[in-house]
């Protein structure tokens, strides 16, 4: 913390410029801004106000120029702008102040819009309130000190969490730019959900064909260190200087010795249902790589299902391994990584369709989810690409595809999952390719907004298929007529013709929605970011900053922040990488100097503040018996300042003095708008304030 060593100017040295913004009619429509400026010029002279102006749009170039010019022409050394919320333009005016040659932290922005004109209708009272708010700002700014930002070094290495397409995209951008990337993935291979798909819309590219080259590139890149079958356990530190603890789970296979020949998988006698990659539709062995093109090729032993670990027998893999790579004694290892930035690309989970009991998934054999169908259709899948019913043999003669399963539904997930309409159309095409079946598509709306998407929809329409605009009420196997016997019947209102209809089909595919990962909330806490009530990670700004988070140094890409298609995920991965590259290239980053500081001489060592800090920025020095705050990690939230019972912590930029002064200023204005008293210096004369209130 490098506050410039200075003393507060003596009273007669303070020269304040006051600027009251009209904000078009946003403020001026309720508050008489000209009057407020005039009032300030007249009544706040003793507080140091030298010039007071009102202007239509202070944030505009000419508006900002008023500030910079006045600083030079009037020798101003404090600025107060009464306008919108600091959230929006604090930076704007601080920068303008800096351009005028003044330390930017000598400028305060008070809100007379969000806190006044936007919430009141009584113009007279609102104007008085604006005066009070302005007076508060003036009193506070008198106690502002010039501050310098904290500068932190940026470690050029980056951590990417999640090896799906978004994570791989970010990794390749960073690695190709010449910087080190650690790619951590919890599954045995990178690839994510995209590796499970058959074809991708709208181009109908084979998913694995376009993905695997990128997987290989990431896996073999000299700048990339792949940590698969690994999970991040702890994140400490701050932007530019994160220390991340990663648990590399034991594979029970020595990665250096294994050559990926696959004999162990062949010989393993234990077959289990593959719930992850095959979506529960196929089998794998106890020692396995999730799919043939896995990167890395090193298999993993599923310990709970391994005969050796259960009973102490078998060891077939070890017997047949030519390179002696099997190591049953391998243990989890903990790896500590030092990185400068983190990109979270942990992806999504599929909505559990068993929750929609009216659709019978799990009860009726021939109801499938989208991921299950992807595996059926995929030629490398459990049926070698044959689209068949649950009996594994019969080809369906009619297939129904249901949109919005679990999405746009207040009983489950209220949002739209963005990709399911396109996915359903893709399924319609794939079914046509693989079978002779009649295809029914049940939708509420057709959401085909992307590039080439609506053309794809039109193409599918031309390919034939019966599109019914209606969400099925239920799927049942109870037949009412002989034609319905042995079929799955969808009961639906065809809203385009206004009739209730029943459709008997052989197979139903549910386009289930996307959900945040099951552990999304824990992950958010671990990485220090926020997530919404649903569990989607929250971006810094949904429109203007979709890959950054409120936590400096942690970025998000892909479906972790909300459902999106592959192009968007790839774009976000690259965008996050670009942001990180910007930081790396700058080598040093400036952080806001609004921080808390512990005054050691007042600290009693009670440590109440230690556990309160949401950013883990406070540590305790056992030797000295006092707490201290890491300035780089501190976000200036003020929790510890308020909590300290000894008042030993003060906030730079929000000291007790400043805050109390602002309150005093607010109370300086009476209900009729007349000033009650002049401020005293030093501040906080409680009796005087009471007297003013009584007056």
């Amino acid at each position, binding site marked *: 913390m490098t506050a410039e060593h200075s003393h507060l100017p003596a009273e007669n040295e303070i020269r304040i410029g006051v600027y009251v913004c009209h904000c078009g009619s946003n403020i001026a429509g309720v508050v008489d801004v000209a009057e407020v400026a005039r009032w300030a010029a007249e009544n706040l002279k003793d507080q140091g106000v030298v010039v007071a102006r009102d202007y239509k749009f202070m944030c505009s170039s000419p508006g900002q120029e008023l500030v910079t010019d006045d600083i030079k022409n009037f020798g101003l050394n404090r600025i107060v702008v009464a306008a919108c919320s600091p959230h929006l333009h604090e930076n704007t005016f601080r920068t303008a102040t800096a351009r005028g040659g003044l330390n930017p932290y000598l400028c305060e922005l008070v809100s007379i819009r969000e806190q006044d004109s936007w919430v009141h209708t009584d113009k007279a009272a609102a104007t008085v309130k604006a005066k009070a708010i302005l007076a508060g700002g003036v009193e506070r700014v008198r106690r502002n000190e010039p501050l310098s930002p904290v500068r932190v070094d940026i470690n050029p290495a980056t951590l990417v969490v999640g090896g799906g397409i978004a994570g791989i995209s970010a990794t390749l951008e960073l690695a190709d730019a010449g910087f080190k990337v650690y790619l951590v993935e919890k599954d045995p291979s990178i690839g994510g959900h995209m590796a499970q798909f058959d074809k991708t819309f709208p181009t109908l590219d084979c998913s694995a064909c376009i993905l695997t080259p990128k997987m290989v590139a990431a896996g073999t890149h000299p700048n990339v260190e792949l940590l698969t079958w690994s999970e991040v356990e702890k994140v400490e530190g701050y932007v530019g200087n994160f220390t991340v603890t990663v648990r590399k789970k034991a594979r029970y296979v020595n990665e250096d010795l294994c050559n990926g020949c696959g004999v162990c998988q062949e010989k393993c006698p234990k077959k289990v249902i593959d719930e992850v990659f095959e979506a529960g539709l196929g089998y794998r062995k106890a020692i396995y790589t999730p799919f043939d093109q896995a990167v890395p090729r090193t298999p993993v032993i599923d310990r709970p299902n391994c005969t050796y670990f259960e009973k102490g027998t078998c060891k077939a893999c070890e017997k047949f391994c030519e390179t002696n790579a099997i190591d049953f004694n391998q243990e989890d290892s903990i790896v500590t990584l030092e990185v400068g930035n983190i990109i979270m690309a942990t992806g999504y989970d599929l909505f559990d369709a068993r929750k929609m009991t*009216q659709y019978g998934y799990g009860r009726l054999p021939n109801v499938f989810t989208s991921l299950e169908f992807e595996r059926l259709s995929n030629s490398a899948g459990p049926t070698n690409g044959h689209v068949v019913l649950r009996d594994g043999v019969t080809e369906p003669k009619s297939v129904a595809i249901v949109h*919005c399963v679990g999405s*746009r*539904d*207040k*009983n*489950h997930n209220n949002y739209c999952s963005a990709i399911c309409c396109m996915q359903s159309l893709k399924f319609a095409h794939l079914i046509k390719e693989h079978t002779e079946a009649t295809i029914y598509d049940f939708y509420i709306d057709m959401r085909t907004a992307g590039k080439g998407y609506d053309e794809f929809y039109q193409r599918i329409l031309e390919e034939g298929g019966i599109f019914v605009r209606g*969400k099925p*009420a*239920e799927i049942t196997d109870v037949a009412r007529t002989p034609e319905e016997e042995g079929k799955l019947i969808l009961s639906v209102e065809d809203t385009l013709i206004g009739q209730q209809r029943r459709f008997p089909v052989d197979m139903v595919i549910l386009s289930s929605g996307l959900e945040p990962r099951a552990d999304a909330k824990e992950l958010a806490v671990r990485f220090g970011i926020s997530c919404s009530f649903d569990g989607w990670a929250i971006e810094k700004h949904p429109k203007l900053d979709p890959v950054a988070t409120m936590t400096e140094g942690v970025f998000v890409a892909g479906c972790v922040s909300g459902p999106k298609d592959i192009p968007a995920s790839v774009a976000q991965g690259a965008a996050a990488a670009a942001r990180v590259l910007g930081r790396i290239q700058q080598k040093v980053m400036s952080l806001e100097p609004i921080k808390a500081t512990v005054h050691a001489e007042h600290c009693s060592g009670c440590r109440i503040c230690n556990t309160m800090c949401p950013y883990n920025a406070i540590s305790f020095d056992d030797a000295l018996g006092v707490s201290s705050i890491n300035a780089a990690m501190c976000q200036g939230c003020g929790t510890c300042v308020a909590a300290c019972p000894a008042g030993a912590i003060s906030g730079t930029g929000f000291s007790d003095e400043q805050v109390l002064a602002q309150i005093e200023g607010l109370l300086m204005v009476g209900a009729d708008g007349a000033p009650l008293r002049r401020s005293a210096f030093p501040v906080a004369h409680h009796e005087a304030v009471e007297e003013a209130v009584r007056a």
Partner: protein
Amino acid sequence: MIRAGKRAEVLRSNTPWMCLSCYHCVVRCPQEIEITDVMYAIKTIAEKEHTYPSNVGPDFTGVFIGQARRFGRSWEIGLTARHYLRHFPLRLPGMAPMAFGLFRHGRIGILPHRIEQRKQLQAILKRADELERAQ
């Protein structure tokens, strides 16, 4: 339809009277619209404004409730007799075997059961009627 200006058609429709309150719609509706309650509302308004298309449904209900209010309990045989006489007189003979069967098994009473505090119930319902009319 109501929002499209077709209020009259809705109130004249037979649909709400076919609703049996099984609540399938309510638990499934993705917008959590209480459809069954909407049906009840339409029925009560149709009843007030006398816009129902056929009075078999409303009448059945009316007789049931009239008896329940008077006695404090429902009176199956009184309800059935009155209903069939009014609406399906030709079906009455066909109902005889069923009625006889129920009699035989002691599952139907001839006379209505009267609760003790009938006056209290009626006072409550009278006041409720007033409040309902005032709505």
